[in-house]
């Protein structure tokens, strides 16, 4: 007949500090692997559009002629596929979440500043 089964846990929790965190006054717990938001290094993007094809929620849009890279933060579900498939590794996953918004902000625009390096003169190799 168990009547006082819970007493031990209750007594201990009186003397322990609370298990909850005062978020957003204190920052949330994060780990090095946490998926927060996608960050692009604009000086390395070659506008190959692989990230746009692989995105499962169609959140990325690249215009190679205007050299822009747009991401709709509300559609992105931080699945990490664009980071893994980028061939020049210009995308990284940051660990902090984007703060909540009250008005739809649309897509975030980034201008790509990558300049293709000029082809080196190949005077050394000549096929006969």
């Amino acid at each position, binding site marked *: 007949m*168990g009547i006082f089964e819970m007493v031990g846990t209750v007594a201990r929790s009186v003397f322990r500090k609370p298990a909850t965190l005062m978020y957003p006054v204190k920052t949330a717990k994060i780990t090095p*692997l946490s998926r927060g938001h996608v960050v692009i290094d604009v000086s390395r993007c070659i506008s190959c559009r692989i990230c746009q094809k692989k995105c*499962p*929620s169609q959140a990325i849009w690249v215009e190679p002629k205007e050299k822009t890279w747009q991401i709709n933060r509300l559609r992105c*579900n931080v699945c*990490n596929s664009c980071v893994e498939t980028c061939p020049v590794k210009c995308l990284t*996953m940051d660990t902090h979440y984007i703060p909540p918004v009250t008005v739809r902000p649309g897509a975030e625009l980034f201008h790509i500043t990558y300049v293709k390096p000029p082809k080196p003169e190949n005077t050394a190799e000549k096929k006969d």
Partner: protein
Amino acid sequence: MSRQIIIPFGPQHPVLPEPIHLDLVLEDEIVVDVIPSIGYVHRGLEKLVERREYTEYVYVAERICGICSFVHGLAYCQGVEGMMKIEVPERALYLRTIWSEYSRLHSHLLTLGLFADVLGFENLFMNAWRLREHILDDMEATTGGRVIQGSCKVGGVRRDISSEKLDQMVSGLNELEKEMKELTEVFLRDSSIKSRLCGVGILPKKEAYEYGAVGPTLRGSGWSIDARKLGYAAFSKLNFEPVVETQGDCYARCAVRAKEMFVSIDLIRQAVQKIPDGSVEVKVTGAPDGEYFTRVEQPRGELVHYLKGNGTKNLVRSRVRTPTFTNIPPLVAMLKGCELADVPVIVHSIDPCIGCAER
């Protein structure tokens, strides 16, 4: 002759975590008949397979449910690998096993906590969820997400865990086991909980099998059937026995879940000891052609994924049969003859995950 009145239960009800509607036909507070009705969270996810490639559909499959999301991703990946006859490396199989058992631990703690909340025992609910935070922290540290893991892909897993981290996880679980023992003692031995659970919502052994019950609902009525014994992932190399209780009432189902948590911790310890070294993924080329059924053990029961491909990058059909969907007919049988105040307890004892049931 007593009159019959019909009372609607749900879809909005303080004890229901997800919307389900039951029309209860009552005669003087005894339930005589039940007509269930679902469809409040139907998203038509099975139709999306025609518009997403087979490698991208993993993300959709994971988001069918929030509690059991890793197991859905695992079942889909296993289905595609079965169709295309891909051999997954051993280390990836062990890692998938470890993550599924973690998934099972956090799901059972969530269910037990919600069960205590339904009974009115809020202190126990908060303590169960306090223990669950430790498990979610471990999952976030290894996969990057607390709720949606995103670590399964066709051909293996996307991340690796180092052996120091694995040993750290096991020692964390050892400490957690002591606190979980105290928690399950309260569930199984406290007299106020027992008086509300014992003898309520009895599902006899023969009906449980014939009506199609799966998971702890079936194992609480005396059948030792567990889909992990099929030997998918690394389960063929680990030893365990399914937990069985024989009374068939709500107390038995709760006891099955409480005891399964300790079996899961033991499985994780065995897997960490036996895990081999090697790569965690294999390159996948080509397109799936053919059809395949996969069966895995979700925390709520047996999950079946049926996939059909025709040689293009999009699959033709993906059919998901979740355990809560098939536990609804036994629920109808359990509710007949009970009192009105016992209805929330019985609805919770099958562990309803309506988001899964209606993808």
